[in-house]
Structures are given as structure tokens and as C-alpha cells.
């Protein structure tokens, strides 16, 4: 597994390539930073929360979301096309019988457009290596104690798809509006390390 890149030679290599591209006129000075800023500006867990709240209030939307998430999220004005290419999105729904959790064991792939920049622990080797082997134990450390009769599925983002968990709608929320439901959804809930 790769570790922290911040102080490694790869950072120097990337800066070198960037300056070569700029010196040859293939890239405007600062263009990469600008593009990254633009991409990140739209990425926040509030996007994923809106998707979850819509799914809780609209069963038809839930069906479309679980079948073809890229098309469905356009109904709420969202898209996975903010980067260089549209990424495939796979949404997996928690049920009374099954709980899902997301990891990238190879690096730190993550749906930034829907969840914002990933939390530090998501990129840590401890989370990445342990959650595939002992998800029940790792979730317990996050404060999520799942009964033994709930099956756990871990999704490893080892190729090109990005994943989002659709949490279960909390009990006692029948009277809440869609914006009120949106406010209940947390980033951990959308990764699967918390219930909501």
C-alpha cells in the first residue's frame, strides 16, 4: 500500500512535470490548482445528504438510484462529471438485513463530488487494511455496534467506480421535510461507518 505522499519524491516529480508542461505552453501557470479548486468547490457531503433524503422520500428515485446512479443524481442537479471524465457511481443501500461500508484498499479513491474531500482516517493504512478483514470490529470502534444477524458487505474501490452508501432512514422521521432529512445525514453515514 502507498502511504503519505506529501513529502515524498513523487511530489517533486509532479512539480517538475507541471513546470515542464508550463514551459512548453501546454499548461497555463497555476492551471492545475485552479482546476482542482473548481472541482473541490462543488464537492461537499451536503450533496450526498440531498441524494439520501430524496431517496428516503421517493421510492421511484431510490430504484433509479440503485440501478443507474449516474443518471438518477441528475434529477437532484448533481453529477459525477466534474473531473476530467465522468466517474461511474455505485450506490448501495443499507437494509434491515445488510449493512454496507466503503473503502479503497489500494489508495484512497472516494466520491469527492458527493462527499467532499475524504476524512484523514479514510486514507489511513489502519482503516484501509483492517476494515476488509474485520469490519464489525472497525465499525464498533466508530461507535456503530451492529447485531450479529446483520450481514456486512465491504466495497473495495479497486477500479474506476466510486461508491456511496444509502443509509437507512431513522425511525420517527415521518413528519420531517426533505431539507430537514438532509440535515440528518452525515459523511460517515454515506461511507457506512455510522448509521446515518
Amino acid at each position, binding site marked *: 500500500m502507498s502511504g503519505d505522499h506529501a513529502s515524498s519524491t513523487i511530489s517533486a516529480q509532479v512539480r517538475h512535470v507541471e513546470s515542464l508542461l508550463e514551459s512548453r505552453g501546454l499548461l497555463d501557470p497555476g492551471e492545475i490548482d485552479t482546476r482542482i479548486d473548481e472541482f473541490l468547490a462543488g464537492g461537499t457531503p451536503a450533496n450526498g445528504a440531498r441524494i439520501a433524503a430524496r431517496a428516503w422520500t421517493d421510492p421511484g428515485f431510490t430504484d433509479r438510484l440503485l440501478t443507474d446512479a449516474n443518471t438518477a443524481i441528475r434529477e437532484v442537479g448533481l453529477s459525477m462529471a466534474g473531473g476530467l471524465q465522468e466517474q*461511474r457511481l*455505485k450506490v448501495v443501500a443499507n437494509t434491515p438485513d445488510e449493512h454496507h461500508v466503503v473503502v479503497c*484498499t*489500494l489508495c484512497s479513491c472516494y466520491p469527492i463530488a458527493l462527499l467532499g474531500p475524504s476524512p484523514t482516517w479514510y486514507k489511513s493504512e489502519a482503516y484501509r487494511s483492517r476494515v*476488509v*478483514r*474485520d*469490519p*464489525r470490529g472497525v465499525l464498533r470502534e466508530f461507535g456503530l455496534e451492529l447485531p*450479529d444477524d446483520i*450481514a*456486512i*458487505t*465491504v*466495497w*473495495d*474501490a*479497486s*477500479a*474506476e*467506480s466510486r461508491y456511496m452508501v444509502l443509509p437507512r432512514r431513522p425511525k420517527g422521521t415521518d413528519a420531517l421535510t426533505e431539507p430537514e432529512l438532509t440535515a440528518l445525514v452525515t459523511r460517515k453515514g454515506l461511507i457506512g461507518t455510522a448509521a446515518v
Partner: protein
Amino acid sequence: MADRFPPGTRVRTRTGDPDGHTRLPRYARGAVGTVVERAGTHPLADERARGRATDPRGVYHVRFPAAALFGAGDHSVVVELWEDYLHEADPEEVPS
């Protein structure tokens, strides 16, 4: 493009440890799992990382029982794998 491994197909992953970049995680090598669905078609990351020309080919969500990967555990792990990493499991090979 035809689906090489339709949902429900039992597949075994490659066992080799190639030089350089690959997207077949070490823990999932040589294991038997079941195809959930195709996850689109993409150029093979192993070849792209080496700067080689590469055509898009099928990528699959493959579900493995934890016991088949680690020898223990009651959960499942779904790994997303290029068809290059997979071959159909022998009929007697059942996910353990």
C-alpha cells in the same frame, strides 16, 4: 460488447504478483468469488500505468466471502476487478 462474466458467474482471480502497478489487491489473489454485475468498461490500469496502449474491457464487481479471502469472518467483500484478472472457476470450486 458482450458480457464475458454474467452476474452469478463464479470466478477465480489470478494468483501472479506482477511487477509494477496492478489493481488486483494482494488479499484477493487466487480466490473464488461470484460476479455481482459489470462495472462498465475501462482501459486496463496496469497497462495505462506503463504508458502502453490499452483498449477498454469489462470490469466487474465480484463478491467474495471473507472466509475465502482471509480464512475467517462472516462478512463479504466486493472487489472491482478487470476481466484480465479473472477466469471462470472450475465447477467444483465453490466460494467457501
